C-alpha cells in the first residue's frame, strides 16, 4: 500500500472537502465535515481496500492521515503488499 492511493481512498469518503487539499499531513479530525459517520465510512473503506479492521483507538490516536496510514500498514497481514 502507498500513501497516495490511501489519500485517494480516504478523500473518496468525504463529500465537501477538496481532494487536492488532502495531504499526508492533513489533520483529518479537524476537517469541517469530519463526524462520527465519516469515521465509520473510513473504517469500512480500510476493511474493503486493505482487509484491516481499524479500532476506535487507532482513529483517536491518529492526528494526521500519515498516522492513520501507518496504523493500517502495521496491521496488514505479512505479505499483503
Amino acid at each position: 500500500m502507498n500513501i497516495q492511493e490511501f489519500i485517494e481512498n480516504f478523500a473518496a469518503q468525504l463529500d465537501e472537502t477538496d481532494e487536492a487539499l488532502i495531504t499526508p499531513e492533513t489533520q483529518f479530525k479537524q476537517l469541517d465535515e469530519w463526524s462520527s459517520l465519516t469515521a465509520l465510512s473510513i473504517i469500512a473503506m480500510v476493511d474493503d481496500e486493505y482487509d484491516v479492521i481499524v479500532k476506535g483507538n487507532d482513529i483517536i490516536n491518529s492526528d494526521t492521515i500519515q498516522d492513520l496510514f501507518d496504523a493500517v500498514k502495521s496491521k496488514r497481514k505479512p505479505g499483503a503488499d
Partner: protein
Amino acid sequence: MSQLTINNVRIAGMSACVPATVEDNRTLPIYKDESEALKVITSTGIERHHKVDEGTTASDLTVKAVERLLTDLGWAPEDVDIFAYVCTSRDYIAPQTSCILQDRLKLRNDCCVFDLPFGCSGWVYGMSIVGSLMSHGTLKRAILVAAETNTLNRNPRDTAVRPLFGDAATATALEFDPDRSHPMNFMFGVDGSGYDAVWAPYGGMRRPVTPEALVEKEVAPGVFRRGIDMIVNGMDVFGFAIKQPPRSLKELISTFNIDTDTVDLLLLHQANRFIDEKIRKAIKIPPERTPYCLEEYGNVTSASIPLTMVSRCSERLAGDDKHCIACGFGVGLAWASMEFYAGGVKCSDMITY
C-alpha cells in the same frame, strides 16, 4: 468450530409488542437542525423507534406478547413446558424476571423457567438452548421471549445511541415435532476482548453503584453519560459488525452445505442499514430476501430478528416452509448464526402497549 444440529423442533407461532410512544429521529432535541438528523437517518436507515413510558418494563411488554400468542395458537398457559426469557433489562437485580413472569402468565409451577441475559445475539442463542432442551422429546412446548427496553438503560442525552435504539418484546412458540424433517443448524462465536465495545461499566459487582456513578458527565461534545449507562463505542462495534457476522454466516454456509440460492430469508440483527447491507452483500443474498424493520423500530437488540419476522414476514412464514438463515451479533462481543426452515407459522398481529 462449535456447531450444533437440532432435530424435531419447529416454530409454531410468533408475536411482538412495542410501546405506543414513538420518537421520530427528525425531531429529536439532540440535533442542531433537521439536516443533521437526516444525515443520521440516511446512513443508519433508522427513522424512528418506540419507547416505553416511565414505569413500564420489558416484562410488561412481554406479558402482552405472550398472552396474545398463547390465545392465537390455542395454547393454555399450562401447556407451556419451557419459558425462556432473553433480556438484559431485568425488572430487579434479583430474582430472575422469568420467575416473576411464571406467576404473571399463570405458567405451571413445574415449568422449566430461566433467564438468558444475552443482547443482540440472544434470539439465536435462545433458539439453540431451548431447541436443545426440547429435542430430547419430553418438553413439548416452549415460549422463547426476546425483549429489551434499550431506552431505559441508555442515557437520553447520549447522541451516539438515542437515535438508534428502541424497545420491544417478542415471543416465539416452539413445538416438539417428531415428524419434522428439517433440522436447525447453529454456529457460535465470541470475542470477550471486545467486552468494552458495548457495556455498562457500573452497577455490577466489579464496579458497584456509587454516588459518583450516578453523576452525568459530558464525555464528548453533546454526549452525556452516567457510569451506570450503557456505552456503545460506535467505531469498535462497527469494525466488529462488518467483519465477524459475514465470517460467521460463511462458516454456517460452508459447514452445513447451504445453497444460498435456495435461501428465502436472510434475517439479520437490525443493527443499522449500512452494517446489515455490508453483511448481505458479503454473502450475496438479494435485497428482496433480506427484510428490514429497523426504519420503524430501530435496533431492539435481541428482539430484532423475531420482530422483523413478525412485522415484515408474517404472510411468507404462514405458507410453505421457508428456508431461513439468521445472524445475531453484538454485546459480548458475541454472535451466532443459524439455519432453519419455518412454515405454517402463526404470527400474531403487532401489539401496541
